[in-house]
């Protein structure tokens, strides 16, 4: 039952550059003229954009700010900082299995690698892999979820059955099989990233599908249909911006998941292969000497946990800011 046409002009006007466009969130109505007793008393009410409201909520989330700062710090340190460090990650230093010192802040391994240089490179690999996974998985998940939610039909059916399958088969084991298949072909981190992305999009696809199913019934979408907007225009210009909150949050949390899984794969020898190093493969290499040379274990795993923790805090803060309906009570 279409709404009267008069609804469409204001609604079909481009939405504000929404970041927090979850359906439950509406802008506070500016008080009508003449009733501004509060403004007269000096408490003026300023109209705030959705983006600004989200940003304010985010700023108030101290742990999220901390998490974001740590993550950016680790990213810069491992990508930019590594170029300024006195050792390369594959360089043999002549110091074998020495503990942390001023010369080697994280110590050296038995072959003579400077562990700090290795951890920097490993962190860069882990973060890059995880970010690539998150980007690819988010694009695939959003597209498939969008098409399934918007059109329904066979793609929707296939997606839902696929989801059923994913629920009964341990994901980690499937990834191990895939990784075992590709690790002989290439130890390239990009291959591992593709393998991870291939399986990590399903959760987001379901999320986007659900959001689209409910958005489809809203009046402003109906208005779009009424004025003859194309399907792609509706999806890209109107529906995705309204689902962007959950998408961004999920993309962030996928970075954490990908780092965790990549570390496990690399630890088991099926992930990142030499000459590339990742934190997982470093921990695997250091594990043999863990009791005698404990720094080989402490530093890579400490940085790994710190990185994952920081992304999780960041994701949680973003969830509170962008997607309050999904919020787990803090």
């Amino acid at each position: 039952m279409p709404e009267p046409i008069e609804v469409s002009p204001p609604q079909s006007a481009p939405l504000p550059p929404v970041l927090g466009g979850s359906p439950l969130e509406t802008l506070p109505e500016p008080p009508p003229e003449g009733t501004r007793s509060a403004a007269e008393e000096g408490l003026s009410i300023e109209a705030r954009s959705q983006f600004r409201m989200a940003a304010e909520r985010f700023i108030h989330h101290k742990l999220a700010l901390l998490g974001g700062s740590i993550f950016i710090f680790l990213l810069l340190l491992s990508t930019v900082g590594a170029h300024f460090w006195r050792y390369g990650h594959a360089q043999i230093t002549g110091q074998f299995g020495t503990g942390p010192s001023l010369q080697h802040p994280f110590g050296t391994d038995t072959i003579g690698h400077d562990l700090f240089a290795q951890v920097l490179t490993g962190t860069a690999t882990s973060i890059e892999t995880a970010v690539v996974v998150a980007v690819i998985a988010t694009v695939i998940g959003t597209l498939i979820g969008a098409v399934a939610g918007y059109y329904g039909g066979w793609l929707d059916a296939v997606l839902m059955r696929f989801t059923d399958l994913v629920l009964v088969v341990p994901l980690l084991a499937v990834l191990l099989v895939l990784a075992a298949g590709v690790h002989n072909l290439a130890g390239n981190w990009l291959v591992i990233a593709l393998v991870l992305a291939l399986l990590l999009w399903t959760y987001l696809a379901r999320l986007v599908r659900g959001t689209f199913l409910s958005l489809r019934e809203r009046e402003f979408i109906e208005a779009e249909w009424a004025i003859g907007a194309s399907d792609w225009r509706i999806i890209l210009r109107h529906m995705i911006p309204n689902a962007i909150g959950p998408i961004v949050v999920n993309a962030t949390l996928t970075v954490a998941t990908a780092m965790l899984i990549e570390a496990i794969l690399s630890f088991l020898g099926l992930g990142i292969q030499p000459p590339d190093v990742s934190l997982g493969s470093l921990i695997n290499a250091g594990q043999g000497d863990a009791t005698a040379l404990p720094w080989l274990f402490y530093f890579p795993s400490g940085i790994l946990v710190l990185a994952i923790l920081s992304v999780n805090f960041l994701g949680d803060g973003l969830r509170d800011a962008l997607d309050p309906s999904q919020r787990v009570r803090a």
Partner: protein
Amino acid sequence: MGAFIARRIAAGIVLLLVASFLIYLLVSLSGNPLAALEANPHIAKATIAAAREQLHLNEPLLERYWTWLTGFLQGNFGTATTGQAVGPQVLPRLVVTLQMVIPATLIAIVLAILVGVVGAVKQYSIVDHLSTGLAYVFFSTPVFVLAILLKDFLAVDFNKGVGHTVLYTIGQNTPGVTGFGNVAVDAIEHTILPVVTLTLITYATWSRYQRSSMLDVLNADYIRLARAKGLSPRRVLYVHALRNALIPVTTVIALDFAAVIGGALVTEIVFGWEGFGRFFYTGLTGPVSPDVNVVQAWFVISAAIIILFNLIADILYGVLDPRIRYA
């Protein structure tokens, strides 16, 4: 209820068959088990041809799957690339894994409920902040990091402190121990660390759900009513609040069970248990790999356990929430 269970089991079997087919394709296409043999110039062509014959690699993929499926339906898991039958190895190895998974899951559930409820009741207290922080740390820690930490650092110091080995770090038991009491003590001493690892990794997420669902319930009107009509706080908490707060958590735990099995796989490898997970890992990365029949057995049995677990959760759901009727 009977019809509901029957329908769910039927759906589960269909799902299992589809999954088994896809996994079979995936594993078969993921590698050539004879690659190492073929790369070795000292091995005669005839030997390789014989091995190929023995592994049925000459047949088309679909035919191989069909052979596997007909065998499986008759309770035959096929032969491993080592020549041993897969079927007889499944149960002993599964028992080893369950020795870790069952206690860990039970303890994790109890711990998650306890921590979640305390966190919700004492919201924003020191206990709450502390348990929230710990939960974050645990679900940001890869299983193997925690396992190595316990194994190579805590256990060594602990055993030194006690003066003899209490916390074993390798294997699921000591071979050659006899007598029922000794076997039991030995098994427990081997099981403690893996169970602690798996428990800590799993309880963290669950406790967050429990806390948030408990907070939702505690703010509900019917809880205010229960308090207003003068029920004791204890009764309000346990009978009215907790029972309702358990409902969403049940689903989370059931859906998360696949992750527990994945976690057990890694834990087993770090602690050197000859369990079901290592069986899978050896089948995947061993000398003649991928060993399709071994990997396939692991997947099918894991999936069956997960489906069963989900079914139990659905039934529990009905017990916890009498409004839910299974038609």
